[in-house]
């Protein structure tokens, strides 16, 4: 009986040598793993793009209606300067807006966690705030705050704070009751209970919410540009759309997507840093 390496834990009589099912067997960690992790996404995206290209070529649909991915790529590349110039302000406003959004979400969630009265008072307002169409409040924002950074930051915050706030509020509320009880038995103040149990207990829930919210951040910034902006991916999209340059609109959409995916990926890295004890089994 010579030892055989298998991935399944000891379930067979033949000699087994198995390594954690958690961290997938990796011959050489670094680059190879990354490549193997990215492969499925790359494959599927490639397949979809090919399908799309084929569909456009076969149906001969007008590029104003649906340009082929190759055309989007080509034109996007030709206009890379303009795309970059417009991406920068969007990235800037996204960063500031999302920072504000996180601050607001944490502040609200903590306040609500400490006061059931506030919880009941604010919850309907928070929900209602998500129903405000930006179009309806844009004039107010402009009249009050002009065309500077502020109204855009407000729009992004408005669009993205809610998932984080809800995730945190429910995360706090869902923490293990007996753990809180233990702390209370130690005479822990409400603040200490929060710090030692509710806060760390809510972090996984926070990161889930963060992933949802961060996805909306860039889109929110583009949306915010409707309130008034001189440059930005949203402005670029509108300019191109009004000139029937669907290909360039989609190029800008692609840039947005790449930005969002990068931010989304970033949350995993941050999570690993902040909650080293927590391992969802992302098998």
């Amino acid at each position, binding site marked *: *009986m010579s030892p055989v390496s298998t991935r399944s*834990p*000891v*379930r067979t009589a*033949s*000699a087994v*040598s198995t390594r954690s099912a958690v961290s997938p067997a990796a011959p050489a960690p670094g680059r190879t793993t990354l490549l193997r992790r990215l492969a499925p996404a790359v494959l599927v995206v490639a397949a979809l793009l090919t399908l799309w290209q084929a569909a456009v070529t076969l149906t001969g649909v007008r590029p104003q209606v649906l340009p082929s991915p190759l055309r989007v790529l080509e034109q996007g590349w030709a206009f890379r300067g303009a795309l970059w110039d417009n991406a920068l302000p969007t990235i800037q406003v996204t960063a500031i807006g999302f920072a504000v959004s996180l601050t607001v979400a944490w502040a609200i969630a903590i306040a609500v966690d400490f006061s059931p009265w506030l919880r009941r008072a604010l919850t309907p307002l928070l929900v209602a705030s998500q129903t405000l169409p930006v179009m309806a409040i844009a004039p107010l924002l402009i009249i009050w705050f002009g065309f500077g950074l502020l109204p855009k930051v407000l729009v992004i915050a408005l669009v993205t704070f809610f998932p984080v706030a809800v995730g945190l509020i429910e995360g706090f509320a869902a923490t293990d009751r007996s753990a809180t009880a233990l702390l209370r038995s130690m005479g822990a103040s409400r603040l200490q209970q929060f710090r030692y149990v509710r806060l760390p207990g809510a972090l996984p829930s926070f990161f889930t919410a963060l992933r949802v919210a961060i996805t909306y951040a860039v889109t929110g910034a583009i949306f915010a540009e409707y309130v008034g902006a001189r440059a930005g991916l949203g402005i670029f999209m509108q300019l191109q759309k009004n000139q029937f340059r669907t290909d360039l609109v989609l190029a800008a959409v692609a840039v947005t997507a790449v930005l969002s995916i990068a931010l989304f990926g970033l949350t995993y890295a941050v999570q690993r840093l902040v909650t080293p004890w927590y391992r969802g089994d992302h098998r």
Partner: protein
Amino acid sequence: MKVRVRDLAVSYGDLDVLSGMSLDVAAGELVSIVGPSGCGKSTLFGALAGIAGEDGATVTGTVEVDGGPVRGAPFGLMPQQDLLFPWRTVLDNTTLGLEVAGTSRREARARAQALFEPFGLAGFEQARPGELSGGMRQRAALLRTVVGGREVLLLDEPFGALDALTRTAMQEWLESVRDRYGWTTLLITHDVREAAFLSDRVLVLSPRPATVRREIAVDLPRPRTRAVLTDPRLAAVEAELLDTLRA
């Protein structure tokens, strides 16, 4: 041999927990495992049940059941932490093993229900696990395991949270039904008297990394009754076990 283990080694990263452990259990036998806290007893059960890898262990070695590779799920594991599911009632927790094996819910419930009385859990069928006391949780977990109908039971401290009386009652219950169902049983316990009272053989493990340091056969007639508790042979085994552990 019902179960045959050879050269089983388990490590968590740099921490070697089991190093080349071998053991045999005959069909219908009850073998107890005693050893210092943290030596690797629960880890051994995890490796047998095929789930040690789940929390990051590296496992090597051979496990055979009935002389061949492990097929299906012959092991019924009662984990040390009871692992009752908060989203199921106590009754539905106890039917889990049966449901997984494909028994109909109704049939499973009937079979589990029958044990609630002898397990002192009558009236708590529809309670949630969070509403049970520590000892009641443990009994529910044991109930879930024995009702699951597996050939080999792996019981990890099944009576650890029970008071003397309840404990004796449960031990006697186990002794009385073990034979009837032909269970092959591996039992982790820290109570040498319990080990001596219930077992055909007791394996004493060394501190981590664990190997079988000593194997002690208990030559007492079966089925064992309360009378055995005063048998000097039992006391002798007990003393021998303690001595081995102290060594």
